[in-house]
């Protein structure tokens, strides 16, 4: 069981009752035993909403009709002459031996799931906020910014996982570039500027954030080795990145664009440079360009709204990249590209997709931390 439960029977009479919250199925289970007949009976109540951690539920169970009344508000009642007078959340009078009133409280357990790694889940959307997402999907991640705890949604409940274990296993942690400070995960490339980043579950993670809202800029996910970030119609590559690291990925976008790439950590650099070898079906061509404000990945097409590239890069003081993909074309043209550019000393995330003119919202992109 991944949740601890405290069961506090408030009022039982002839029946000895035991009430549980079944987090796997999001329902109340009621066991009760009639001391006279020695019969044990079971009943269920499927909750219409998911129970939040650290919350209470109050159950009023009518033993004659076997009807549940479940509320998050404590019932108000008085007992007089073997009768129970309930005034809230319902108005009812019961014989004392015909009703069960029960409070269920439950809370996060400190028992974490054993041998759990974030790679166990194929895909997860990461919410970084102080309250639980209202319409979660299976295996969504939620980082509670109030408590610095990470949960994933198992289909019916938020399950806490201990992110500190796999973080401490990271080479960045061992190099002093990753730390846990006041319960927060922080990353720094230069040891001076520390930035909070957020762990997530999932082999592929999609950060729920608005790239057009600067208030969301802090939402940067920490990926352990093997985890990938998915972008859909976004330009901010929101994953923590420091020296050293190795990345690979592929993307497609629909903006006519000459040279494009990414600004490391969203910072304008001044030494972006690229070498190009491109080929149509009848000829080879080459070129080289310098002085970009970003790390180039590729020479894109300025003719068609079709750009795709498969890329790798290593961050080792500088960013060194190699890529293959679609190049400048009137005829079908492909190319191979090598490029480089500085990674700022205080940089802490991969960066923002851009060309010389504007941010590039990619249609679809997956970038994986390889090392």
């Amino acid at each position, binding site marked *: 069981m991944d949740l601890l439960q405290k069961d506090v029977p408030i009022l039982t009479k002839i029946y000895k009752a035991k009430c549980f919250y079944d987090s796997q199925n999001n329902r109340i289970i009621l066991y009760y035993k009639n001391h006279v007949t020695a019969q044990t009976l079971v009943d269920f109540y499927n909750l219409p909403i998911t129970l939040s951690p650290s919350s209470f539920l109050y159950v009023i169970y009518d033993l004659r009709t076997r009807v549940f009344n479940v509320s998050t508000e404590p019932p108000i009642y008085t007992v007089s002459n073997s009768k129970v007078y309930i005034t809230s959340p319902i108005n009812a009078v019961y014989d004392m031996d015909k009703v069960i009133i029960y409070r269920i409280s439950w809370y996060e357990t400190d028992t974490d799931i054993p041998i759990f790694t974030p790679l166990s889940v194929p895909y997860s959307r990461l919410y970084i906020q102080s309250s639980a997402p209202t319409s979660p999907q299976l295996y969504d991640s939620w980082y509670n910014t109030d408590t610095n705890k990470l949960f994933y949604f198992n289909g019916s409940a938020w399950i806490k996982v201990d992110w500190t274990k796999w973080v401490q296993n990271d080479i960045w942690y061992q190099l002093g570039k990753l730390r846990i400070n006041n319960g927060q995960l922080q990353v720094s490339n230069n040891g001076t500027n520390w930035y909070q980043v957020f762990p997530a579950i999932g082999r592929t993670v999609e950060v729920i954030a608005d790239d057009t809202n*600067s208030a969301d800029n802090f939402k940067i996910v920490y990926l352990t080795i093997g985890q990938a970030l998915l972008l859909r119609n976004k330009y901010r590559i929101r994953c923590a990145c420091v020296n050293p690291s190795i990345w690979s990925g592929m993307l497609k976008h629909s903006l006519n664009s000459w040279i494009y790439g990414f600004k490391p950590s*969203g910072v304008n*650099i001044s030494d972006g440079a690229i070498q190009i070898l491109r080929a149509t079906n*009848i000829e080879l*061509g080459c070129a080289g*360009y310098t002085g970009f404000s970003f790390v180039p990945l590729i020479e894109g097409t300025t003719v068609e709204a079709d750009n795709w590239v498969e890329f790798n890069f290593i961050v080792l003081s500088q960013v060194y990249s190699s890529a293959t993909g679609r190049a*400048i074309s009137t005829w079908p043209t492909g190319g191979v590209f090598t490029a480089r550019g*500085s990674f*700022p*000393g205080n940089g802490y995330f991969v960066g923002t997709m851009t060309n010389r003119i504007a941010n590039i919202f990619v249609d679809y992109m997956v970038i994986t931390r390889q090392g």
Partner: protein
Amino acid sequence: MRLYAWVENGLLFTTEDKNLAPANAIELEVASFDDVIYDGTQIRLKTEEEKLTEEKQKKLEELKRYVATLLSQTDYVITKLAEAEALGDTET
């Protein structure tokens, strides 16, 4: 726009995000980050002449690329002509 600029290992870096700027960054009010330059001794705004030279350079690059795309479609013929001449094949 408000821009933060600093120099690291002799290279200029700029950002609009104050959180990304190190303590030694200077604050500038500019139209574009392209207007800022590090001349080897100081971070300053580009002169009108420098902007013009840069713009000319960009236009030249664009023109070169445009011409290259036009020529690339006839390159095949020219290459084949040269090959034919080298082989002594002068028949049409």
